[in-house]
């Protein structure tokens, strides 16, 4: 249905026809119900503003919702990786902890990192063992600065997978 044609009608008709496809996308991406409502609402309100430039509303709506779902999981995964990374950094740097506590933590961390592929082992050992920032890590291991942030993120994803199975994360 074109933009002009819809000016006469309502959005209800369009949405009614789209319901099964929305449900399919949200189910496929396993979006939690409360977040699914937000994603759907934001997508539909964006459509109202951009309607004039959209050629095929049905495809655009499904495509945009799908893209939002991808971004949703990417953001959630990133926030988990960041939480795990900060937590590990904080735990290994906590000076007030008893020596035994730190030794246990180091052992567990080494075991988790040791199960990763060699590239991630090197990157995370520099990060948690020597406190190297990504730039320094890139220099020491001979990676390009432009690609090191992506590599660190992949290694954090792999470490997170050692702790929790997260959907859609890449093996490293």
């Amino acid at each position, binding site marked *: 249905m074109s933009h002009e044609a819809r000016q006469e009608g309502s959005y209800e008709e369009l949405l009614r026809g789209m319901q099964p496809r929305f449900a399919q996308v949200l189910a496929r991406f396993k979006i*939690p*119900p409360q977040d699914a409502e937000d994603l759907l609402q934001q997508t539909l309100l*964006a459509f109202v503003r951009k309607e004039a430039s959209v*050629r095929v509303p049905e495809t655009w709506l499904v*495509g945009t919702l799908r893209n939002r779902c991808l971004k949703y999981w990417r953001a959630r995964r990133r926030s988990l990786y960041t939480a795990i990374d900060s*937590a590990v950094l904080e735990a290994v740097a906590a000076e007030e902890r008893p020596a035994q506590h730190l030794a*246990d933590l180091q052992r567990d961390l080494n*075991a988790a990192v040791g199960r990763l592929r060699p590239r991630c082992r090197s990157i995370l050992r520099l990060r948690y063992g020597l406190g190297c920032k990504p730039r320094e890590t890139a220099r020491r291991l001979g990676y390009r600065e432009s690609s090191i942030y992506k590599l660190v993120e992949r290694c954090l994803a792999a470490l997170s997978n050692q*702790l929790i199975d997260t959907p859609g994360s890449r093996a490293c």
Partner: protein
Amino acid sequence: MRRFVEGTLPAAGAAEVVRHLLSGCDGCRRLAARGWRPQPVDAARLDSVLGRVADRMASERARVERERRRAGILLAELDAMPYPRRLLMLLNSERFSNWFVGEILLERAHAAVFSDPSQAVRLAEAGVALAGRISRQRPTDRLAVDLHARAWSILGNACRVSSDLERARDACARAEELIDHGSGDPLEEAGVLARHGLLDHAERRFDDAVGRFDAALRRCRMAGDLHLEGRVLTHKARSLGETGKLSAMIDLTQRALTLIDPEREPRLVLVAQHNLTWALKEAGRMDEALSLLQEILPLHARSGKTLDLLRLRWLEGKLAQAQGQLERAETAFREVYDGFVRSAVVFDAALVALDLAAVLYEQGRLPEMKQLAADVLPVFRSLGIHREALAALALFQKAVEQERISLRWLGALAGYLKHARDNPSLEFEPPA
């Protein structure tokens, strides 16, 4: 554990959870994993959500229409202002915080990019100022982020066409960073990626360009916009052609031509057909190139754009040259050279002068070549060609004068001029 998985647990608590998970507690590991496997959406619940949203969409549409009407009045007011005052108003005046004013400014910038690149830069700067302001006012509005990203991207594109590559790079990077936090509109993302790809192409990072065009293509398909897909395919084909992948360039351009909507963007059809003819010629498929040329000549003649016609005549000359019809080639190159000089299209004029020089060289007409080399230098100086390119043309004149010129030398200079067009700091290194 739920708050940890959602990333909302304070740092100290999160550190304790990680510490515990590292110790290998299987129970907690399973508990955490459950947070990533939510139940699918219930159909009845989705129905009621859609009902509620339909009402909101109707009221949003009324609000959007009011904002759109107001934009017309505001733009008339802005158009009457001198540029510095316009920019000041967009940056500071609450009254002008209108999404559609930003959108129209950016449409104008996009439309002016080839006809008047410096005006396009100014319009895009105004768009960036306004979109930045709207974005700051509505920090959670992803549509405002989209507009802001588009503004930076269009500014980057205008800077690229104006040969300000450093600024173009910054602007495109900023756009790409922003669009990641936008509404998820695949068309908006495709636009940002494609414009960045064009910058990669201009900077001769063809692999990066192809990567970005591929990402843009995925988004065009996601949105079901076949015409845009055709446009991006044309860009990708050109980048592949630059790396010598001529048959891929031919295939992709042919596919692009089936997708492009001539009514929506008639010139794009001509550009794609022109590129295809060039690629066929370069691939040695002369019969196909000549037959396509005959097919597109009347279409170009109808389009009536002087520069497009000149470029097509140039291609005719190149085809004649490749067939050994040097006299025909020379006539075409002389016409095109004069046309580009009259239109002050300086780099293309220089390139066609080199084609003409090659034709003269092939016929052993050295005195005429010397005359040509002596004639073109003052022309390019008066047209304001940049310093490094002028230095390269001076070297050309000297090499012709000293009879050290060769087809290889001419080819190297032509290659240099193609790159230097977008990169004024590039220096020419003559072949040994």
